[in-house]
């Protein structure tokens, strides 16, 4: 490695920066702080022409060090951030916002609120318009904190209500918090983005004050407006809302259908399958089978008894009715090459049996149908189960033996 013996300002600061970065990666905060003291004079040559200039570097590195250094405290941090705010007007709101986050993470809610309010009142010529997005976020988070106050006040009121007290001042405060929160939250969720927490809070407010229509509209927009990024949670929130308000099965199903498409392994798929299985419509029941099979494609569900019991129930029902075996055939077609090893190996039979007999029961039933009575999983579990003389295993064994030829039809 050749050592360059020349040196100029730029090069030495680059070197300094690499030492800081190395120290930070190795969590040597004292060393990072040491080198930072030598780096800060770059501020006197801050041309802001680079992608990330010295002032942004110092802000980010300094924040990181102060977060982790054992001798640092909030007072130090605040004084540092206040200096950073004066460093770059183009970044002012961003620094304010991150400062507020930091305060929130340290439980300093009031200070965070003050900071956000202060930032909200900032004006700086054309910069105000340029930093419009950051401003919206600041307002949104302040709105969030207003919601938080509202929520606290609501709980106080409920308590007092139980004790028989009336509290006009709290009620007024609560209402004022509501208004402040609502205004800001409404604004931010108009902008395409992922705003889960804002949406949830806003909907909570609307529901409390009985504005269900607005709430439904908000949730629909959030879930279905194509300008917004695909977000499974949007559909979850909508579904939960619809369920709370006793909406029709049809609307519930349509809400969950998209969720199934985006996140087939979502936990709500169990509810979805349960709903669909009970449906009178053939299409829905077909979909239900598709949904539950898809869920069990995912490793996270391998040992979930509920999921297996849903599949077992539906498969059993189909076999008994002797109608729609082709459904099972279709679903099994793409799975017959890998599900046996994935779910029904002899090793799994043993470990499932040891850990959870209910799980092995459900799985054995499914295995028996799909792979026949001679498959390893079914043989082992039914043998073990019958040894213990638990009734259901005997019943299961009989059932599978009776329908033993099904597997040939579905795997053909």
């Amino acid at each position: 490695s050749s050592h360059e013996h020349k040196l100029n300002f730029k090069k030495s600061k680059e070197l300094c920066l690499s030492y800081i970065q190395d120290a930070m990666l190795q969590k040597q905060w004292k060393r990072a702080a040491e080198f930072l003291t030598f780096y800060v004079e770059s501020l006197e040559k801050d041309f802001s022409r680079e992608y990330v200039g010295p002032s942004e570097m110092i802000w980010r590195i300094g924040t990181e060090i102060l977060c982790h250094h054992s001798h640092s405290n909030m007072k130090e941090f605040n004084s540092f951030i206040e200096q950073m705010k004066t460093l770059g007007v183009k970044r002012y709101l961003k620094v304010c916002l991150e400062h507020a986050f930091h305060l929130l993470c340290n439980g300093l809610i009031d200070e965070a609120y003050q900071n956000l309010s202060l930032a909200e009142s900032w004006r700086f010529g054309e910069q105000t318009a340029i930093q419009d997005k950051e401003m919206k976020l600041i307002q949104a988070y302040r709105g969030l904190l207003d919601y938080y106050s509202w929520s606290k006040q609501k709980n106080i009121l409920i308590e007092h209500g139980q004790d028989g007290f009336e509290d006009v001042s709290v009620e007024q405060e609560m209402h004022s918090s509501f208004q402040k929160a609502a205004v800001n939250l409404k604004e931010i969720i108009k902008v395409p983005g992922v705003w889960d927490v804002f949406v949830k809070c806003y909907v909570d407010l609307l529901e409390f004050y009985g504005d269900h229509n607005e709430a439904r509209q908000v949730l629909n927009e959030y879930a279905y407006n194509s300008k917004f990024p695909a977000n499974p949670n949007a559909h979850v929130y909508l579904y939960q809302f619809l369920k709370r308000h006793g909406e029709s099965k049809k609307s519930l199903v349509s809400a969950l259908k998209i969720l199934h498409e985006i996140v087939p392994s979502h936990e709500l798929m169990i509810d979805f399958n349960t709903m669909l299985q009970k449906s009178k419509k053939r299409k829905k029941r077909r979909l239900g089978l598709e949904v539950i099979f898809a869920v069990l494609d995912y490793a996270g569900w391998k040992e979930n008894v509920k999921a297996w019991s849903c599949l077992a129930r539906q498969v059993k029902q189909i076999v008994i009715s002797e109608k729609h075996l082709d459904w099972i055939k279709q679903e099994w077609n793409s799975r017959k090459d890998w599900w046996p090893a994935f779910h029904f190996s002899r090793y799994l039979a043993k470990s499932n049996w040891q850990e959870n007999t209910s799980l092995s029961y459900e799985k054995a039933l499914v295995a028996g149908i799909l792979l026949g009575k001679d498959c390893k999983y079914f043989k082992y579990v039914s043998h073990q189960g019958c040894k213990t003389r638990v009734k259901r295993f005997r019943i299961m064994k009989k059932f599978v033996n009776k329908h033993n030829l099904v597997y040939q039809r579905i795997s053909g």
Partner: protein
Amino acid sequence: DFNERCAQCSEVNWGLTDGGRFYCRSCHNVTERTREVVNTDFISNARVQTISKGLRKQEKNDRGCEWYVCEGFQFVLKKQAEALEALGVCPQMKDDVLCNFWRCYLQKSKQAYCNRPAGETIRVLSVHDSSTDVDSEPSLLHLLSPSESEGDLQTDCSFASSASKVSASTSVCSGSVDGSLYLMKNQKEKLRMTMPMTLSFCYMALLWLREPMTLSDLLRFVVEGHIPYFNVFKHFPEKMKLCGLDLKIFCVESWPVYEEVHNKMLELAAFLDLPRFPDITDSCFLHPDMLCMKYLMEANLPDDLHNWTCRVVKKICIGEADFLTLVPGNKSTRKVKYDVLAVALIVVVLKLLFLLDDHYEWLLSDFAEERNKNNKEGGPYFEFKKWYKVIKCSLDVEQKKLDEERAKYLWRCEKPLFYSAEKKSKVLKRRQMVVNLQNQFGKLSGSVRPAEKPNPSSFQLSWSEENTDGSCFHGHSLKGILQEKCGVLTAMNPDYWLCTDKLCTEKLCGHLAHYREADFPHSYHFVLRLFSFLLRIQPSYIHDEVCVVEQKLFNKKLFKKTKYSTGRRK
């Protein structure tokens, strides 16, 4: 300047007695010639045109007084000379030599001690000038654009709501009277003064006096902060205000480069029409025989190697005063870089004795180790392997320290700089913030900051024979790798490999050879790396010099184009 040859000994080596008379330093012959002592204080600097203009204008307000760029440089040189004196350089350096060189320069570049040539008007842009000069002047704004080179000090922070460059109306100002003019004129023929050139002046004076300080030493002292160079303006008197274009002239933000300072020194010596410099004889520090001793010690190599370097010096006739002494303006002779030459000689000797082909030196070391087992009397035989381990360890440690020092280098000082008066408050605010942040994170640094500057020392590595761990090799003997032949001790190594079989033309590509680490043995690179660290120059510079020495040494053989694998140079 007094350039006559001494009547007694024909030397040109003059000094001044206390009485102000010239005396010859070589034979101490005192003459009747006298000269006035010139005060180097800038205020009474006897510039012809200011005298003819009348009294200097002294501003009553905060403006300070008028000062010219060359006065600034004069001040710098004075400070540097004082620093050198504090390092042990003889006092004549400042009052006699450097001062006279400088005055000679002023005269030759027509900045003083002469009448301004007719037709050349000084159009000076002062801050008070609201005249129309600005329109007719060619735009000086390009001078303000930040450049990669030294002196780009636009402290325009992004806080400005209107992030504008310095507009013409605010005037391209400078604290000095002729700052803008200074940068604008095409000064190629007149050798415009720059900050690096101040070091060239210093070195030239040191060389004239044959002081025991090499150029690499000088530059290292500059970087270590013992000689004013960076932020030198903080020593300027209060009245000399620096702003605007002065920054581009006087503020440096890069380390001085050996080649650049050396070349400028040669240019300068020629420009000043200096005569042949005082002879470098074998009792001078800069003579290869002396310098080699110094570097051998520093490199922890056996003293015995000194015989070999002297032999090589003698063989290729580079110990002659005619070869070593600088004769300015003589384009035919290659100018000697004493420190580089000395280390190159050591490298060549190491190659002669150890071959350094990544193979032989280790075999030889094992051989010496064997012989050492039976070696009961006298000192131990030198073993390359042991030396390598010790040096590698130290070098890695020192290099690592140096790398950290480079990353920690501070360029700014407490005295802030600003381009124009309007920027002043912003600059001061920034400076305050920098100080605050340094304090805040300094407290979190944990360790106490070490002393500001290392003590100035000519030796960066030192080895003591008193160490019982055997890490000092000075007293080791080379007998372990030598053999007797016809009553003379010669190297066991019969071979030698040349770094290059032909030198490049310096004029075409700037180098005599092209060094690439991958093309050469590791041991060779290691040795280059060691001296590269000591001299703070690129390994390739040393490699070039090694090539030159080898060409001289094997000149006859190369000329005959016969194989050179036999025999040894005595």
